[in-house]
């Protein structure tokens, strides 16, 4: 079960510069665990110590922001595309 994950510039230090990598998982949570198994440290940039999705990143599954589809519990299937983007915000 291969899912394409698009990686933003700021996180490409974890993927050897790759813009896009493959990962697997039935949910976003397990996908991130799998990503971290191959790109150690990336999980800490996506998930807080409390286990929630970091507010500094936006994650989309097939163009849907996962905040509206169950966050880390969002279900994934073969062929889905995941995009990670840094939130652009400030005060």
């Amino acid at each position: 079960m291969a899912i394409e994950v698009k990686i933003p510039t700021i996180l490409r230090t974890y993927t050897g510069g790759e813009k896009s990598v493959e990962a697997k998982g039935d949910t976003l949570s397990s996908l991130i665990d799998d990503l971290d198994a191959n790109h150690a440290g990336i999980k800490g940039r996506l998930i807080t110590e409390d286990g929630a999705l970091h507010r500094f990143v936006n994650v989309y599954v097939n163009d849907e922001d996962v905040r509206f589809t169950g966050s880390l519990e969002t279900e994934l299937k073969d062929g889905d595309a995941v995009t990670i983007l840094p939130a652009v915000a400030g005060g």
Partner: protein
Amino acid sequence: MDGVLRIERATHDAIVAHARRDHPDEACGVVAGPEGSDRPVRFIPMLNAARSPTFYEFDSADLLALYKELDANDEEPVVIYHSHTATEAYPSRTDIAYAQEPNAHYVLVSTRSDDETEFRSFRIVDGEVTEEPVEIVGD
């Protein structure tokens, strides 16, 4: 990356006009350029989804559409700008916490004075802020 922001007069003026138009709310947007070029050429004003005088945020769907478009054009956000409407044109703690484009020039515009618009540029990398000179070209 030589520690200076070179920007066309027309683009500079478009950023200032956007900041003035949205005052007292914060205005935000990007200037895109070819990947690796460090040339801000395509002005893209964005909607401040927060519609706030103290916070700005690109709408989540707009953000995705923007990055898809940049990706398709082999562009990147060379400048990421926003305005402060009551304080100086210097990155706030929130700005620094959110800054996640190590290649971008973070432009801050202040519209706190009616007569004069502050326009300053910064690098923000790993929480460290470095101001850089702004060189306006194409006069």
